[in-house]
């Protein structure tokens, strides 16, 4: 039997197309798996966001913040006397440069400044 060149070309073409077809199919399946996984991750992430939203709302209950304030900060309610218009506040004399030159230099070492601090940083590192 003589294989005519045309038949060989067609045969090779069929093999190539078939291979490509399966290649694409498997790739699509893989992509779909990725999509399913990502979808699940998104859904899980959203569920977590919902839980965190609820937790945030729970943790920022005004009554809780008030309790924490009383315990750690002791801030009071704002009174009307504390609020005013910007133009009402008297401007300081001179430009900022003048302010600097007129200012008394502060020579108190930082360690001696009394008052509450947010955190104390230890400079000694113990191994």
């Amino acid at each position: 039997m003589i294989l005519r060149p045309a038949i060989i070309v067609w045969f090779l073409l069929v093999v190539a197309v078939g291979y490509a077809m399966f290649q694409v199919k498997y790739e699509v399946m893989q992509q779909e798996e990725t999509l399913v996984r990502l979808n699940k991750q998104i859904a899980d992430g959203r569920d977590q966001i919902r839980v965190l939203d609820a937790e945030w709302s729970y943790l920022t209950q005004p009554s809780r913040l008030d309790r924490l304030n009383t315990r750690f900060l002791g801030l009071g309610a704002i009174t009307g006397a504390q609020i005013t218009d910007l133009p009402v506040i008297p401007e300081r004399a001179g430009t900022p440069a003048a302010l600097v030159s007129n200012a008394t230099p502060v020579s108190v070492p930082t360690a001696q400044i009394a008052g509450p601090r947010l955190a104390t940083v230890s400079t000694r590192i113990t191994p």
Partner: protein
Amino acid sequence: MSKTVPRDENPCRPRHFRPGPCGPAPQEGPAKHSLEMSHTRLIITGALLGLAFLVIGARLVEVAGFKAGDGRQVRAVPVGRIEASRADIVDRNGALLATTLAAPSLYANPKQMLDPRDAAHKLVGVLPDLSEGEVYAKLASDKSFVWLKRQLTPRQMAAVNRLGIPGFEFQDEEKRIYPQGNAFAHVVGFAGIDNKGQAGIERGFDDVLRGRKQPLELAVDLRVQAILRDEIVKQMTQFRAAGGSGIIMNVNTGEVLALVSLPDFDPNDPGASPAGNLFNRVTLGTYEIGSVFKIFTTAMALDAHVTSMTGGYDASHPIQIDRFTIHDDHAQNRWLSVPEIFMYSSNIGAAKMALDVGGDRQREFLGRLGLLKAPSFELPEIAAPLLPSVWRPINTMTIGFGHGISVSPLQIASAVGAVVNGGRLYRATLLKSPKDQPATATQVLSAGTSVELRKLLRLVVEKGTGKMAEAPGYLVGGKTGTAEKVSGKGYNTKSLISSFAGVFPINDPRFFVMISIDEPHGDKASFGYATGGWVAAPGVSRTVSRMASLVGIQPVDENSPEIRRSLLVTLPGPAGRKLASN
């Protein structure tokens, strides 16, 4: 005979024999016919096959080129808002008040249980509220499905998973969570285990919440609500009261910023509180609110031009009518001008004023303010007012100072709002009003009367019974009210409802604030008084100063000349028409 002899003339040739065709044979008869037929069939078959290939080819091009992804099972999750079967509820600033979380429920298949006793013991170790005996009984049964615990938290689910016992399974369910707890109990209400609204907005908006994905925005403000509740709790504790309620309303839109009814309950576990705590005092409770009603009586008399700011009535003697005596709590025993009647809260004066206007006009006026029928509101817990069946002169007089008619604090809020805001009555609402769409209102009294009432309300706080409601810088105006509670057929002088209805800033009203304390007991600090001016007014004062900066109200100087002038009320001097008969 010359006869054409055909070639191959053989007499012995069988008759039917014919030489086979070689090349296009001469055809004729049936042979030619059958060949033609097969030829046609071949062409038709070929054409059909060709057509089929064409269709497949076309479809291939279509699928590959134009409709990629169509008909796929797998799709991306839509972007945007997080979805749940029931919409969230948020306050006006977006703070979460109610949400739905996935809450897996634990069930077991006892047939898969290897060691029910061990499994029960381990499960109770991580879920301590279960009883080991009950769990064992369930796991040892011969069913193939038993519920163990509904609606677990994510942490509990992880703990159960960590046990690694085969036969425990989870069913996805949803649970409604109210992260703000008691604070919004009466506003938001709660939904049952089947996610059906049982009270509050959850019930009133059940269908809406089921059908939408966007959160439902309420008009309430988390911070303002917390402040109001906090102050009511303080007043209740100080005066050892049985209950309390409060409402804050924007008088220019009807939006309710805060609504508090105490005692309240935790909507996450409503069954844990006594059933009475579910009662909403602001919308479902109706009370004889007492002197707060004088706001309406005075507005009515001024609006009908029956009297004026310079007019007055003789309040030197109690009124005897039928078997009742109407007397004053802060008796001045003289002729009182209208502003004095208001600031000293004279019952006699208010009764005479109401009688002067007349029962029919009074009824019509109160009806216009929406005080005679149940208000339309978003909560299902709404009460209709209690009215006298026959409107006799005695009723006209007692209603003049707030007795013999029971209305809910919500109705008072809308009505007082209309009296001070220039006479426009807005419908009270718990939903945030869209900015671009102003709320509709009906004009119920003249703007001039409204201005006069503002002055009178300020006078009460400046010089009258409501001095303790003053909040420096915020120009509070308001009216005290102390009513004896109805017990049986009469009034109980010892059990009171003490209220203060305030508006601020009174020169340009923005918010209505009312606090009512139920059954307060006077203490040493209040010299034994348990009246609205002593019990409710301080709470209003603190609420106003705490909330003002949150709602964007700037403090003003009360003593600045413009404000003094705008709120000036001329009181008759001591040499005035003292004791002149009316």
